C-alpha cells in the first residue's frame, strides 16, 4: 500500500520465452513487479538476467509469451511508441553507456531534451540530480576522465533524471570498488524511497544479503526460486 492506495503491478511477464536461433536464453518466465517494489534478479553469468531486462526495455522482442510494462503490452506496441515506453524506465547499464564526447551534464540532460523539456527546466533539474549523486563539481567533465564509480553515478543520474516509475539496473555494482558500490546502492535506495520500482540484476550475493527486497533466482534461463 502507498498512502493508503492498493499497489498495482507495473511489470508483468507471462510465460515468456526468449531464444537466439536454437539457443534458449529464457524459458517460461512468469513474474510480476508491484509498484514501489524492490526486486533482485540473481544468477550466475549467462543465466539470462540481462536478457530479461532487455525484454522489458524492448531492446529485444520476446520469442513467445507476453510482457506488460505499466499497462503497455510490448508484443503489440508500435515502433513509434517505443521511445515513450523507455521514458517510463530509468535504465542503468552494466557498461554505463555514457556518450564519451558529451560532458556529464550533457549526458544527463539528453534524457530531458529528448522528452522535449525546456532548456531552463533541463538545467535546473540536471543540476539538482547531479547534486544528489555528488557529481555537481564534475558536470563539465567527459566520461573517459572519470573513475568507474563516478561514471556509474552519472549513469544513475541519467536513469533517474526523468522521474521514471521503474528503474532497471544491470549489475550496478559489478565493476565498482566496495565504497563506490555502497554509494550507488544508497542512491538507488533514495529513489526507491521516493516511489520508484527497482529491478536490479546482479550476481553479487553480498549486495542481495545486505539489501531489502524480493529475490528472483535464474538458472540457465529458468526461474528457479523466489524469496
Amino acid at each position, binding site marked *: 500500500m502507498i498512502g493508503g492506495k492498493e499497489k498495482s503491478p507495473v511489470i508483468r511477464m507471462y510465460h515468456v520465452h526468449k531464444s537466439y536461433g536454437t539457443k534458449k536464453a529464457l524459458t517460461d518466465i512468469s513474474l510480476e513487479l508491484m509498484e514501489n517494489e524492490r526486486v533482485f534478479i540473481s544468477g550466475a553469468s549467462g543465466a539470462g538476467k540481462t536478457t530479461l531486462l532487455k525484454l522489458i526495455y524492448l531492446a529485444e522482442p520476446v520469442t513467445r509469451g507476453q510482457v506488460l510494462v505499466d499497462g503497455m503490452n510490448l508484443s503489440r506496441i508500435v515502433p513509434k511508441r517505443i521511445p515513450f515506453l523507455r*521514458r517510463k524506465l530509468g*535504465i542503468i547499464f552494466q557498461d554505463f553507456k*555514457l556518450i564519451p564526447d558529451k560532458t556529464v551534464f550533457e549526458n544527463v540532460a539528453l534524457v530531458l531534451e529528448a522528452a522535449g523539456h525546456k532548456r531552463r527546466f533541463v538545467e535546473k533539474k540536471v543540476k539538482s540530480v547531479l547534486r544528489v549523486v555528488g557529481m555537481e563539481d564534475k558536470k563539465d567533465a567527459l566520461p573517459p576522465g572519470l573513475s568507474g564509480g563516478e561514471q556509474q553515478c552519472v549513469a544513475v543520474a541519467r536513469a533517474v533524471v526523468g522521474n521514471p516509475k521503474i528503474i532497471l539496473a544491470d549489475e550496478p555494482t559489478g565493476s565498482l570498488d566496495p565504497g563506490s558500490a555502497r554509494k550507488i546502492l544508497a542512491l538507488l535506495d533514495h529513489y526507491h524511497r521516493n516511489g520508484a520500482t527497482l529491478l536490479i540484476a546482479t550476481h553479487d550475493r553480498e549486495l542481495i544479503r545486505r539489501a531489502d527486497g524480493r529475490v528472483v533466482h535464474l538458472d540457465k534461463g529458468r526461474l528457479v526460486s523466489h524469496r
Partner: protein
Amino acid sequence: MVQIWRRALKDIWANRFLNTITVVTIAMAVLIVSAFGLLSVNFHQLMDKWRNGIRMLVYLKADVSQQDRQALEDRIRGIKGVSGVTFISKEEGLARMKQRMAILERLLEDLKKNPLPDTFEVRLDADALEGDRIDGVASAIRAMAPVEEVVYGKVWLNRFAGLMHLFRLAGTAMGGLFIMAAVFIVANTLRLVLYSRQQEIEIMRLIGATDRFIKMPFFVEGLVQGFFGGLLGLAVLYGLFRVAAVRVGAYLPIGFGEMRYFSSTTLLLILGCTMGVGWIGCYLSLKGFLRR
C-alpha cells in the same frame, strides 16, 4: 528548435573535416552548374540582340511600277509577324554599298549600269524569328508576283538554334550529373558521420529519444552544408565572372550591352536548391541507417 540548432552546430564543429569536404564538393557542383547557367543567360542575351537585328531583304523584279510596288508593300505589311517595311531603291542601295565598301568605291564608280534591284527591307517581330515561322513569312512574300528573291540569314539562324539546343542539352546533362554527384557525396559523408556516432545514436534510442529527435540535427547539418556550399560556389563564380566580364566585354560590339550576373531571385533559388541537395543527401543516408 534552438536545442536542435545547438546540437547541429556542435556536431558540425565536431566533424569539421568531413563537413568541409562536403561543403567544398557542393561548392564545386554549384560552380560548374551555375557557370553553365550564367553562360547560357549571357549567350541568350547576346543572341537575342543579334537576332533582333536580323532583316529580311525582298528583291523586286526589274521594272515594277510604282503602283504595283505600293500594293506589294501593303501586302507585305499585312503578313503576320512583319513589324515594318522600308523601301530601298536601287540607287539608294548602290549609294549605301559605296558607303559601306569604301575599298570597292572605284570599281563601283566604273559600273555602266546599276546591277542592284529595288528592295524592301522587312523587319520582323521577335516571335516571327522563332523556329520555322520565319520560313513561312519568307514563303508568303516569295509567292507574291513582283518578288524576285527573298534573302535572310536562314543558315545562321539554324546554326544559332542548333548551338543553343546543344548548349542547353550539355548544361542540363552536366547539371544533372553534378547535382546527383553532390547528393551522393552529401549522403555518404553523413553516413560516415552516422557510423562514427552509431554508439551515441543507440544510447539516445535507449534513453527514449525518438527518431525525429535523432534525425533533426542531421537535417539541419545537411541544410547548413548545402547553404554554405552554395554560397561558396556562387562567390567563386562571381569572382571568375568579374574577371571574365572585363575581358569578354572588350570584344563585344557596341549595343550588345554588358555581361550580367544572376539576379537576386536566381541566387536565392540556387541557394534553395543547394540546401535541398543537402536535405536529400541527409534523407537518403538516414533512411537506411535508422531503419536498422
